[in-house]
C-alpha cells in the first residue's frame, strides 16, 4: 500500500484547500454525546485473522445473495478529486483499487464473509492457484464464459499480455511485486518494450501451454502470490483492447459495470455491463443499474450533504473519503445518522520516525517515545473516530496483531509519561537546549501535530526547530538518506494482510537506500535475518517470526515511536442497502450495494 501519502497525496489537489476553506453549513447542534464508542479492540481481532486460500468450489459464482437486496436505480458516488488512474497496470492507490472492483477482474480476488474473514478465491481463474515445486511454480486455469464488454472471450494470451505490459514504459505507477518476483529488481530490462513489439517472456518464466492455463515460474518460493494477484494492479487488460497511454482514460470493462461518459476532474457515469456473467463471479453483484461519480465534492460538503440526507444524497455513498472530522460529533451524537455509518481500522500506523544516523542514543529515543501525548496527536487528526492510540508498530488489520502489546505504557498513559521521560533524559546526560530539527508535512493536520510535538519536546528541554515541507514531496524529502532532519511523522500501510508488506519495506536493513521507505534507516543484523527467514515460510508459520522481529524492533532498537492507528468512518444515504466495512479495501464494500427503493 502506498504510504500515508495516499491520503495527503490525493487530498493535495482541491480537497485540503477546499476542506478548510469551505465552511460547513450550520445545523441544529443536538445534545453533545461526548462519550466515544468507536470501534474498540475486539473489532480489530476480527480484522486480523490469517487469510485462507479458497479452492475451486469457493471460487464458483454466483456470489451469495445479499439479504433484502433489490435491483435497479442509480447510485451516486461522492469523491473529492478525480481518480488518478483507470488503467489497471497503473492502479496502486486504494481509491482506484475500490473503483477497479466495479470495472476490472483479475486472476484472483478477496471474498469476505459477514464477520470480515477473507478468503482468496479465483476470479477469472477456477481457483486461488495450484502451487507446486515448493511454491516456486503456480498454475492457473481460466473459467469459461469470461468476456470483455465488447464480447471478446478472455484467453491465457490476454493474461500473459496483462503481465508483460507492466514491463513497458507505458506503466510507471502500479505495483511491482509479481514483476520483481518473476524477473528480479531490474525487471524492465527483461522486456523493455513490453509485449508491444511481439517479444514475450521466456516460457521458463511465464508459460501459456494452452488457451486456458497460465503457469508462473519463480526463482524463490512466493507463498503470497494469490494475495498479490488479487491487487487491482494485476487485473486483466485484453490484448486486442490495449490502447497503451489512452487506456488510462478509457479502459475496457470485464466487471459488472462499464464506463459510458467520463469528464476528467468532474464526473463519470457507469452502466450495467451486459457481457458480465454473474455465474462466473464469486464476489461481485450487479444490483444497481449504474453509478454517477462526481469528483468535485470536498470532504466537508460530502459529510454535510449526507447528514442532511436531502434529495440525491439519499442514494449517495462516500467512496474513499471519510467523514469530515470537524463534523464527527454531529454524526455520532445523532442516532439516525450514526446508523448510516460504517467504521473500521485502516491499514495505516502513524509513527514518529527517528533518524538513527543522527539520534544515536536509545535513551533519548525512549524518553521521547514515553513523552509523546498520543491522545492529543489523535485529537489533532479528528478525535477518536480518526484514530486510536497505538502500543506497537503493527496495524490491527495485520494477522497476529496483539492488542495488549504496549512496551511504553501508552494504553495506560495515553497522554504520555513526562516524569519517566525526564528521568531518561537526565540519565542520558542531554544538556538543556540541545537542538532538534523536526520536519513535518505542511497540511493542517501536520501543522497541528507539529505544535503538540514542539510543546512536548520543549518540556523535555529540547530547542525544537520545526521545518515545514511542501505536502506534495514530504516523503521524497524525508526519504533521502542524507536528510538534515532528526525526526519526522510517517505513516505506512500493508498491501495485503501479511506483515511482509510492512516490516520488510520499512525496517529491513538492506532496503536502506535513497527514496526507500526505511525512513529511520534502521539496519540491525538480527532483524534482517528474521525478515529473510519469515519471507520463505507459509503464512501461519511466518506469523511467529514476524512477531519476534516486531518485538525486537520496538523494544531493543525503537527506531520509531508508535503514535496511533488510523481509523475509517464513512457515511451513506438512507436509501442505500447492503453497506458494510470491507477489511480488504478498508472502505465501504462496493460489491454488495443496492438501493432499498430503486
Amino acid at each position, binding site marked *: 500500500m502506498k504510504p500515508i501519502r495516499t491520503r495527503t497525496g490525493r487530498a493535495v489537489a482541491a480537497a485540503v484547500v477546499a476542506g478548510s476553506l469551505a465552511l460547513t453549513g450550520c445545523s441544529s447542534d443536538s445534545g453533545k454525546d461526548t462519550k466515544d464508542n468507536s470501534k474498540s479492540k475486539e473489532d480489530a481481532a476480527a480484522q486480523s485473522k490469517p487469510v485462507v486460500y479458497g479452492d475451486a468450489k469457493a471460487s464458483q459464482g454466483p456470489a451469495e445473495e445479499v439479504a433484502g437486496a433489490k435491483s435497479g436505480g442509480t447510485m451516486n458516488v461522492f469523491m473529492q478529486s478525480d481518480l488518478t488512474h483507470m488503467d489497471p497496470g497503473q492502479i*496502486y492507490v486504494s481509491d482506484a483499487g475500490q473503483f477497479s472492483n466495479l470495472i476490472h477482474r483479475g486472476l484472483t480476488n478477496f471474498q469476505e464473509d459477514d464477520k470480515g474473514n477473507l478468503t482468496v478465491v479465483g476470479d477469472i481463474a477456477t481457483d486461488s492457484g495450484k502451487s507446486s515445486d515448493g511454491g516456486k511454480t503456480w498454475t492457473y486455469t481460466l473459467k469459461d464464459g469470461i468476456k470483455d464488454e465488447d464480447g471478446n472471450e478472455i484467453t491465457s494470451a490476454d493474461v500473459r499480455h496483462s503481465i508483460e505490459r507492466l514491463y513497458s514504459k507505458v506503466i510507471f505507477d502500479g505495483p511491482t511485486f509479481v514483476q520483481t518476483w518473476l524477473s528480479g529488481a531490474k525487471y524492465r530490462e527483461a522486456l523493455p518494450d513490453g509485449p508491444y513489439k511481439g517479444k514475450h517472456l521466456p516460457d521458463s518464466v511465464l508459460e501459456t501451454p494452452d488457451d486456458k492455463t497460465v503457469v508462473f515460474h519463480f526463482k524463490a518460493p512466493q507463498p503470497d502470490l494469490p494475495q498479490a494477484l488479487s491487487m487491482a494492479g494485476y487485473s486483466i487488460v485484453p490484448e486486442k483492447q490495449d490502447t497503451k497511454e489512452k487506456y488510462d482514460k478509457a479502459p475496457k470493462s470485464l466487471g459488472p459495470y462499464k464506463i459510458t461518459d467520463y469528464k*476528467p476532474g468532474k464526473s463519470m457515469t457507469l452502466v450495467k455491463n451486459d457481457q458480465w456473467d454473474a455465474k462466473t463471479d464469486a464476489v461481485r453483484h450487479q444490483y444497481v443499474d449504474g453509478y454517477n461519480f462526481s469528483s468535485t465534492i470536498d470532504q466537508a460538503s460530502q459529510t454535510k450533504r449526507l447528514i442532511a440526507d436531502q434529495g440525491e444524497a439519499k442514494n449517495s455513498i462516500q467512496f474513499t473519503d471519510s467523514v469530515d472530522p470537524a463534523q464527527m460529533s454531529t454524526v455520532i451524537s445523532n442516532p439516525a445518522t450514526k446508523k448510516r455509518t460504517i467504521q473500521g481500522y485502516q491499514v495505516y500506523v502513524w509513527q514518529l520516525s527517528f533518524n538513527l544516523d543522527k539520534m544515536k542514543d536509545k535513551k533519548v529515543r525512549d524518553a521521547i517515545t514515553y513523552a509523546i501525548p498520543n491522545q492529543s496527536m489523535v485529537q489533532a487528526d479528528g478525535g477518536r473516530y480518526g484514530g486510536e492510540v497505538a502500543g506497537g508498530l503493527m496495524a490491527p488489520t495485520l494477522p497476529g496483531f496483539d492488542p495488549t502489546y504496549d512496551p511504553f505504557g501508552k494504553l495506560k498513559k495515553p497522554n504520555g509519561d513526562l516524569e519517566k521521560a525526564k528521568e531518561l533524559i537526565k540519565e542520558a546526560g542531554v544538556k538543556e537546549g540541545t537542538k532538534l530539527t523536526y520536519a513535518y508535512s505542511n497540511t493542517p493536520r501536520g501543522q497541528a501535530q507539529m505544535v503538540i510535538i514542539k510543546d512536548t519536546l520543549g518540556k523535555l528541554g529540547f530547542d525544537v526547530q520545526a521545518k515545514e515541507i511542501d505536502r506534495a514531496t514530504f516523503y521524497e524529502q524525508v526519504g533521502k538518506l542524507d536528510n538534515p532532519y532528526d525526526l519526522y511523522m510517517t505513516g505506512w500501510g500493508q498491501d495485503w494482510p501479511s506483515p511482509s508488506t510492512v516490516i520488510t519495506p520499512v525496517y529491513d536493513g538492506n532496503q536502506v537506500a535513497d527514496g526507500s521507505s526505511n525512513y529511520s534507516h534502521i539496519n540491525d543484523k538480527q532483524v534482517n535475518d528474521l525478515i529473510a527467514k519469515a519471507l520463505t515460510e507459509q503464512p501461519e508459520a511466518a506469523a511467529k517470526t514476524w512477531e519476534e522481529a516486531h518485538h525486537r524492533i520496538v523494544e531493543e532498537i525503537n527506531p520509531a515511536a508508535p503514535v496511533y492507528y488510523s481509523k475509517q468512518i464513512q457515511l451513506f444515504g438512507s436509501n442505500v442497502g447492503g453497506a458494510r466495512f470491507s477489511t480488504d479495501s478498508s472502505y465501504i464494500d462496493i460489491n454488495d450495494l443496492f438501493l432499498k427503493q430503486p
Partner: protein
Amino acid sequence: MLQFLIRRLIGAVVIMFLIGAFTFFLFYTIPQDFAQLACGKNCTPENIAVIRENLGLDKPITAQFWEFMGGIVSGRDFPQGHCSAPCLGLSFSSGEFVWDSIIDRFPLTLSLTAGGLVIFLVIGLGSGLIAAWKRGTMVDKLVSGASMVLSSFQIYFLGPIVLGIFVYSSGWMDNPKYVPITENPVGWAVGLLIPWAVMATIFTAQYTRMARSTMIEQLSEEHVRTARAKGMRQRYVFFRYAWRGSLIPIVTIIGMDLSALLSGAVVTEFTFDLPGLGRLAVQSSLTKDLPLTMGVMLFGAFFILILNIIVDLAYALIDPRVRLS
C-alpha cells in the same frame, strides 16, 4: 484608433510571451517536480526517470519551453493523440489535453462571471445612483450604510452561512451545481443562484460606493449646472451629464473585476464546490502540473490583457479629451 489597437495587440502578445517564459522558468525554481509527486510507493529513481521521459521533462528546459510555445501556434503530437492549434500541452495530473479541460470548465466560470457581474453591476451601480440622486436623505444613508456593512463580509464567511440556511438545514434549495445553459436555462440559473447572491453581496458594495461618490462629485461640476440652466429635465441631466463624468473610474473597476473573475473566482468555486477555472488554477500550482499551470495562466492573462485594451479604448470614447497615446 486602428494604429493604437495594433500597437496594443502587439504589446499584449509580447506580454503573453513574457508571462509564459517567466512562469516556465519560475516553475523550475520550485525544488519539487511532478515526477517525484506522481511516482507511487516504489518511487525508485528508475521509475521517476520513466515518468520524466513520458512527460518530456528530461529535455532541456529551453527546448521544452519552445516546444510548448510552438504548440500554441501550430499544435503538437502526443502519444495520446494530436493536439490541434491552440494546444496547451497535456496535463500531467489528468492526462487530458489542457485546452480541453479549460474549455470544459470555462462555461461554469463564464456563467459565474456573467451572472455575478450582471447582479452586482445592476444592484451596485443602481443603489449607488439612487444614493447619489437622493444624497443626504435617509435613503442615501441607508443604501451607503448597507453597502458598507455588506462589503465587510467575505465570501468564505458568508457563503457557508447562506448554504447552511438555504440548503442544509431547510432543504429549500439544492446544492449549487452547474447545469449548462444550453441544456436547461432555468436549471442553470437556479443552480448558480446562491453563488451569484453571495458574490453579489460582497462585490456590489465597491460599486455602490464608487458610483455614489463620483456622481456626487460630478453633480457639483459647472457644466452640469449649465445643462440645468438649459431647462433639461433633472433625470436627463443626472444620467446624461453627471453619469458620463463618473463612468471612467467605474469602467476601470469593471475591467479589473471582470478579468479577475474570468480567470477563475477561486474562493467562490471552493466555497460552493464548483469545478471552474479557479480550482483548476490552484490544483495545478499545488500539484506542480506545468502544462496545466501554463494553460490556465495564459488563458487568464489573455482576458486581462484584452480587457485592459478595451477599457483604455472606452476611456477615449467616454471622454473625448483623452487622446489615445
